[in-house]
């Protein structure tokens, strides 16, 4: 069964590729069917994992899979998001090769979550990286290459780690490692690099904004919401399972990692403020959210790990929702630039509602899925008593408010642009993921306990205590959170406010075009002040913004390229030079063996 969960994507990719050539509709439909099967197969598998091993390669290597609870948790998220993204892709009229490569990448991702040995994990990690890059290498070669190179650096580091582990333990099975002395930190660093890169935690994030911005709009929700989770999955596995012994006894490591996560959350939030491309804004937002996850994992308490897993789930729901909205808006407007949009609220009301809920969740406001995870993280950091760390993570959450506001204001509020007067709501398939994602967004916000049921079992597998909870209530050492009660309160407040507004307001309805100029219609002047929305922040942080780690990586890449350019001159094209090389080499060899050759 595990086999078919993975194979379904690969098989489906090929079938859809073939069928989409004559008819795009049939291709997309078949892809959807093949992507729903894994969902169907995964949902009942909640109780207990099972182990399945089959030898694909009758060489000295084999592939093995197993379904653990942690893998199940992430696999279910990924399978759901992938199926949803196909609806959006259908509206975008994506071609057959897109179906093939996106399905293969989803299959690779499933393989990562279900792998029982390092080699299988590596293999599927590679497949995922390559095929996700193939979805956009044709239109945006530069960002695809950037993405694949960052991925490869990470996954080759992982490969090196697995080779070291194999050398010292003689086995590739994913099991807790104990021993091999002083080299554990080195091996662990190599090991987590791949996942660090994939979850775009700073400073290995520079691939993410361009890759998220340039990937097909319908694929980005899956890319950001699910593929990055392979990184989270790997980090959880490394910290609490494989290297758990080391991690528990070296608190400094966790502390540093928590700082890295917190700073990622903060800095990425600041960068998000300054983006004009909605997808880049969301990309930085995504990095920021995964910074929270890394932060919680670094803290390493039951509450913080639960919080991290909850944020990971929440991120998958609301970040994908936001990306889906951008995809829907793009279908109608043909742009993702914030300055080019505005006032679409009446034209695309469903998208507006979806985006509204999405940003409420992204800003971490109850009763949505964005809140409980962050609540647990805050509680955890306070319990631990790290005031500076708490300050950084609180500051990060402020940036979320700011960029979320900019997002909704620039796209949906303000005056309508003239060229969008005839815009209609996005086609129905593109709206399906929006509507469906609202369900978990609210449900898990009201009843966070159902998620904590699962995370508790995961934690117990790792030898941690669970977080006390009921379906609607979460308890920490410092207090309780009742999702349902908060939800009812918020709902009631909203209804009362609405009634007050309806009964007492004396507002007059005006067209979007004249509410800014008191009735004077100024044609040709942009009344939508989004161009330099957070200019003052940019001005204040000017010096800080110039510090970019990307510059360092670019410098290294340039250096290697330049080295190539220099070394290329070794092959000067001059035969005399070549003969000199040959003679020099002979001379070198004779010198090398001078001790032996003296006779």
């Amino acid at each position, binding site marked *: 069964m595990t086999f078919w969960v993975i194979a379904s994507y690969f098989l489906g990719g090929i079938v859809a590729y073939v069928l989409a050539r004559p008819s795009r509709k049939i291709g997309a439909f078949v892809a959807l069917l093949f992507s729903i099967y894994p969902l169907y197969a995964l949902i009942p598998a909640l109780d207990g994992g099972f182990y399945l091993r089959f030898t694909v390669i009758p060489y000295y290597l084999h592939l093995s899979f197993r379904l653990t609870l942690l893998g199940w948790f992430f696999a279910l998220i990924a399978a759901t998001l992938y199926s949803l993204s196909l609806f959006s892709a259908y509206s975008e009229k994506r071609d057959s090769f897109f179906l093939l490569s996106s399905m293969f990448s989803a299959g690779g991702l499933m393989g990562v979550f279900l792998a029982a040995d390092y080699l299988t994990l590596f*293999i599927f990690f590679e*497949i995922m990286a390559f095929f996700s890059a193939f979805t956009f*290498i044709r239109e945006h070669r530069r960002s695809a290459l950037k993405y694949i*190179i960052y991925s*490869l650096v990470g996954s080759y580091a992982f490969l090196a780690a697995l080779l070291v582990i194999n050398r010292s333990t003689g086995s590739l099975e994913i099991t807790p490692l104990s021993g091999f002395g002083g080299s554990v930190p080195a091996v662990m660093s190599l090991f987590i690099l791949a996942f660090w890169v994939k979850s775009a935690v700073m400073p290995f994030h520079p691939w993410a904004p361009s890759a998220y911005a340039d990937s097909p709009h319908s694929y980005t929700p899956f890319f950001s919401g699910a593929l990055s989770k392979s990184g989270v999955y790997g980090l959880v596995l490394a910290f609490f399972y494989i290297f758990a012994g080391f991690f528990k006894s070296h608190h400094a490591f966790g502390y540093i990692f928590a700082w890295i996560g917190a700073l990622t959350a903060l800095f990425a939030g600041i960068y998000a403020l300054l983006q004009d491309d909605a997808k880049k804004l969301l990309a930085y937002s995504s990095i920021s959210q995964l910074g929270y996850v890394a932060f919680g994992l670094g803290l390493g308490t039951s509450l913080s790990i639960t919080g991290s897993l909850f944020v990971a789930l929440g991120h998958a729901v609301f970040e994908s929702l936001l990306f889906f909205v951008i995809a829907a808006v793009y279908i109608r407007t043909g742009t993702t630039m914030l300055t080019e949009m505005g006032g679409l609220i009446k034209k695309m009301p469903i998208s507006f509602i979806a985006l509204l809920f999405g940003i409420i969740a992204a800003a971490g406001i109850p009763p949505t899925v964005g809140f409980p995870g962050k609540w647990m993280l805050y509680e955890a950091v306070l319990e631990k008593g790290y005031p500076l760390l708490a300050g950084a993570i609180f500051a990060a959450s402020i940036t979320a408010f700011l960029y979320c506001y900019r997002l909704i204001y620039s796209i949906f509020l303000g005056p309508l642009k003239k060229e969008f007067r005839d815009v209609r709501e996005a086609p129905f398939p593109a709206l399906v993921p929006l509507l469906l994602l609202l369900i978990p967004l609210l449900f898990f916000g009201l009843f966070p306990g159902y998620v904590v049921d699962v995370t508790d079992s995961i934690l117990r597998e790792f030898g941690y205590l669970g977080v006390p909870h009921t379906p609607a209530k979460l308890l920490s050492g410092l207090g309780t959170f009742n999702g349902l009660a908060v939800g009812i309160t918020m709902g009631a407040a909203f209804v009362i406010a609405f009634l007050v507004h309806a009964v007492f307001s004396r507002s007059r309805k005006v067209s979007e075009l004249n509410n800014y100029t008191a009735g004077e219609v100024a044609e040709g002047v942009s009344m939508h002040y989004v161009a330099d929305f957070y200019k003052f922040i940019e001005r204040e942080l000017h010096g800080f913004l110039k510090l970019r780690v990307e510059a360092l990586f670019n410098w290294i890449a340039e250096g290697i390229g330049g080295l190539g350019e220099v070394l290329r001159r070794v092959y000067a*094209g001059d035969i005399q030079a*070549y003969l000199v090389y040959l003679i020099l080499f002979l001379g070198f060899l004779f010198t090398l*063996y001078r001790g032996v050759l003296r006779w």
Partner: protein
Amino acid sequence: MVSPILAIVIPLAIAFLMPFFSALSRKSVKWVFLAVIAFNFYAAIMTFLRVLSGPILVVTAGIKPPFAINLLIGPLGGLLFLLFEGVAFLYAIFLLKAEIKEPVHRFFMLFLLNVAGATGMILTGDLFNLFVFLEITGISAYGLVGFKRDKKGLEGGVKYLILGSVGSTLFLLGVALLYSQVGTLNMADIAGRIWMLKKPTLYAAFIMFLVGLGVEAELFPMNAWVPDAYEGAHDTVTAILSTVLSKAGLYALIRVVFTVLSPQKAFLDLLLWAGLITLLLAELSALRQKNVKRMIAYSSVGQMGLVVFAFGMGSLFALQAALFQAVNHVLSKGVLFLSLAIMGKKREGLELENLRGIGRELPVTGLLFSIGALSLLGLPFLSGFWSKISLLLSTADLKLWVPLGLVLLASIIEAFYYLRTIGVFYTGTDFRFRETAFIRLLPVLVLVFVILYLGFRPGVLAPYLKGAAKELVDRSGYIGWVIGGLKP
């Protein structure tokens, strides 16, 4: 039952009869060529199957070794024999529709000589005979490279000629050195008497062989002819240079080091580092190349470096990985050069810019090129992945962490430029579908099929690789086959 010696004799004989065939009918030439190569392929299959039950010894002039020239085909020879003739057969099919500059019969004559020479190199059991075949292969290759008689072709041909002749001279010097000390030219016989050599002589001979054969095996710094020659030569010639010829040179080097001279630690270390430096330099040089053919030429050099590196590790496991990598290199480079040849027919020049959108225009060719390249990069479930991972596993087994890191670095660089190329192939949309003739695609399709098949069933090759690696490690076994018991 076909005697393997016929696979050398018949192409040689037919090569010199080519003018007669040409006089008879100009069109017959390529068919005669195809028939001869097909015969060779048949002989290779038969030999390969026979080798499974034990090595074959073929004596000439009816005198037992070590007194006359003998051929010895063990598991290693059988594997390479099959590989060479199989690939050559595919090239022969590809050549049926190729545009070749007049006089065509000379081209095919040189090509036959080249195949015969390469076959001879891997089958012979005699060191001087090896030199003769090296010369046959080399001289025909110089001719083939310069065959187009344009500036680039001639330039590449001449450079190859100069370096190649220096190389073979050094090789001959090494042979002479050994002969002066042990008084025999039979490889097994020398191997049995290698203890007679003083250490300085042994090392001097090794240096001669390394530098001499390094030219053909594309080791740095003797490989400087490669980019020019590959770029200037006819596409199929480039393909055979990169796949068959380089492997023949490599085989000679490996055979001499492992069997004849005995694998000293110092020799292996030198091979290891020479391979590694070749790999890194070539990959870095390829990074900024604008011309795709030249870029793949550098990549070819890099792959040879990787294989030599793996041989330099010297463990049984590493040898298997090296052989597997060599097999994959043959498959991938065959695909790359042939599909590039098809693309070159549609566009002016093989600069990367000129090839924009070619994958849309030639979807099948583009796909095949991509699979070949991805196999080389080690995408899982393509055969290149398994060889690379086994190579890395054996590197780790020997705890060679620094070389391991360098190989991974080289792989990243390689991935970058190949993916960039593939990306450019699929950029743009407004291209008409103009796929080429099926007969030209067929050889590439076959190679890609093998890549995919081995990708899912790499175990199929395992026993043959193991046998071949054992043959290299077990020197006394080899000596025993020739000198002792085997019945011709």
